[in-house]
């Protein structure tokens, strides 16, 4: 089953990247959401899917005795899901503000590109003859 999920992770991730490269910032957000899911699946699969029993210690026992799903990746993914959600929300609000300020959500629009500082070579002289 892990092999199938590995292929699925590759597919979802490729789709996410394709959307993020599109230059349309709304699609970038969709790609971002897909990538979060792909990465969570990747962590989950890397921890193996050998058992479908949740990692819970039965009442009356002190340690987990019978085989159960891997608890460690689950803890990591729980954190990742929440953080991914926070980032996605922030991204959306940023998009909203960007559109309100500039009127465009096309990443290649000059209004959204950083402007290079003009002429940092001030203070150095063009080649000139002089003190040898």
């Amino acid at each position, binding site marked *: 089953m892990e092999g*199938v999920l590995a292929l699925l992770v590759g597919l979802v991730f*490729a789709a996410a990247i*394709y959307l993020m490269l599109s*230059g349309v910032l709304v699609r970038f957000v969709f790609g971002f959401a897909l990538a979060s899911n792909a990465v969570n*699946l990747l962590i989950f699969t890397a921890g193996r899917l050998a058992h479908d029993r949740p990692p819970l210690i*039965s009442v009356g026992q002190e*340690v987990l005795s019978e085989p159960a799903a891997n608890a460690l990746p*689950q803890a990591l993914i729980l954190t990742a899901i929440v953080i991914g959600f926070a980032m996605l929300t922030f991204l*959306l609000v940023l998009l909203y503000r960007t559109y309100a300020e500039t009127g465009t959500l096309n990443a290649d629009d000059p209004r959204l590109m950083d402007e290079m500082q003009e002429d940092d070579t001030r203070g150095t002289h063009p080649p000139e003859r002089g003190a040898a």
Partner: protein
Amino acid sequence: MASAKTDPHASGTARIGLYSSLLPLGLLIGLFYCWPAVAAGKVISVSYPWMPSLDLYLSFRLDGLSLLFGLIICGAGVLVTLYSAGYMAGHPQTGRYFFFLHSFMLSMLGIVTADNLLLLFVCWEGTTVFSYLLIGFDHESGKARDNARQALLVTGAGGLALLIGILLLKLAGGSYTISHWMDGGGTIRAHSLYPFILITVLLGAFTKSAQFPFHFWLPNAMSAPTPISAFLHAATMVKAGIYLLMRFHPLLGGTTAWMCTLVIVGGLTAVWSALQAFGPLDLKRVLAFTTTMALGMMTMFLGGQSAPVLTAAATFLLVHALYKAALFLAVGIIDHETGTRQLDRLGGLGRGMPLTALAVAAAACSMAGFPLFFGFIGKEIMYAGALAEDMFPQFATVAAVLANALMTAVAAVVLLGPFAGRRPSALPAVHDPSWTMWLGPVILGMLGIVFGVNPEWVSAYIIQPAVWAFHPAREEVLLTLFHGFNMPLLLSAVTLSLGALFYGVRRPLGRMITSIAERLPLSAGGSYDTGLYWFLKGAKGITRRLQNGSLHSYMTIILLVLVAAVAWPWMQRGVLTHPWPNLGDHFAAIGVVLVIGAATLVVLAAKNRLMAIGGLGAVGTGVALIFLMFGAPDIALTQLLIETLTLIIVSLVLLRLPPLEAAKKRRAYRRVMDGALALGAGWVMASLLMGVLQHPLDRSLTAFFEGHSYLAAHGRNIVNVILVDFRALDTFGEITVVVLAAWAGVALIRKTKEPS
């Protein structure tokens, strides 16, 4: 400058100067205390570990050579500090000035006493940095800043070359401990890395000591305050390169490459700089050119092997430090009292400032090499040394005679120009400055005479210990007042007559040299300017190309690197396979996977917002189902909750954004390129996961949590216990991220237009 006396800062400056001269004075007294023992051949050393794993020790060592340099550094340090007390009077930033000055002095002392090569390098860089700060001390002048940067770039680049040389030396089996070098040179000189070590070390020494073709920074460094020029650019820092050559002499010297390079570069630098000294009218620039000349002579002599040649280098070092520092300080006095250092505006100052004139006369006579002055001894031994060069003795002799004759003429210019003749009417009446200022040049000038009539004492107590420190053969060194009627004496006579001739034709000669220098197809200073210009232009071009503000190109670069970096090693390992699952066992799971795949394609192809949102929801829910099926109900629950929230928020925001239909489509070729890149990235992730799956799982961490969850933390849900107990700090960080994102989001939403 004349109003300095009424300035409220003035007395403060004088006090800072007087008090802080106690530092070099104390060091000087310490050196005096050690002097007899060191002159007798004893070596004083201390060592503390700094980073022993890197062979880096705080080890200092005082032998004859260190003593010679130390005396020059501390002696000049005392005089220059006192002098500065008067010269800088009234300047608002004297604290900064004296701090830089003394930091520089300590770095310089560190260079000449360090016994560990890495420690030497640290101090070496210290002098580079502090000299940069001192040259650019007048930081409101653009010219001073440019000159400081030039000195920093040239000597800094040389410092890096030296560092490479140091590391190569270690690689070639050499020791970082300088005192081990006296007998270990053979293996290094035979090593295949020797040429590279030699080139890099010489680059370090030549840039620092302003040797051709790096000679151009030194005259430009004259924008420093004059006492700084006297201290750094006459007596100490530029000699650091000479010191380096002396220290490396037993280790790297003696080969044909060493001898040829030093003799030719040194000779060329000496003659060319001496000629150029006739060009400028600014006295400081004149002196700067003569300094490069002197450094060239020392370099030339260090090319030799025998005692007379090395003695010539060490003796001239002392001769030059004495007269050059005196002259620089005197020029500073002239500038301070008259407001100008232009030769054509000066004249007849001798009557008004007799003490200064006396000091300059003594120094200039030493520079010209008249008998009874120390310069004469220096010149005699130089000719003896030049004749004894192992490589190109004729070239060395001619270069030495020419350079010395030119020096004699320049000495006459420096002495007669400002002090003799009639005072121009534009020049105000002048007088000698306060004692702190005239003390330095007078003492230095007088020392030139004292040493000149006691050469035996100087050679026994200063020069011989210094030469023996880098001359393993330890041949006897003796300076005498009169060597008899021999070749050097004849050459001295030739020099003086040639000097008189050069003085006679100084003006046409100066004009000729200036015009030649201007017409040279490739001047070193010009190459520096051009190089810096194109370097900055190139850097700007690259920055503009890489940081062009386009999201697409940033992502493309990152992904290309990712694919290349991850794909390459995986390709080496061959095709990855994984057993095909038993479809019957995971019937439901396969179905969910298919749903997720289909939903992904829907998002990919979505033409409107609704479709995309629906697809996203399906993918998220599908992933939650996978979690649920494989024993992770907690994250499935979280995922569903978050997915719902995401959908609500995405829908809310998207309503206020332009519809997808309005977006421009990518051009076909870009779709293909992006698609290929996306497939590559997906393939990387899939094969990475496949690769991980091929290795057995390490469950030791999981086993720890399974074993301790209840016993240590009293929780039965292991995932929860990990989050809130074992890894609670991680969860705290996660909460912080959420809060920060929410905070920033609220700020972005609430931002209202600023009132106009």
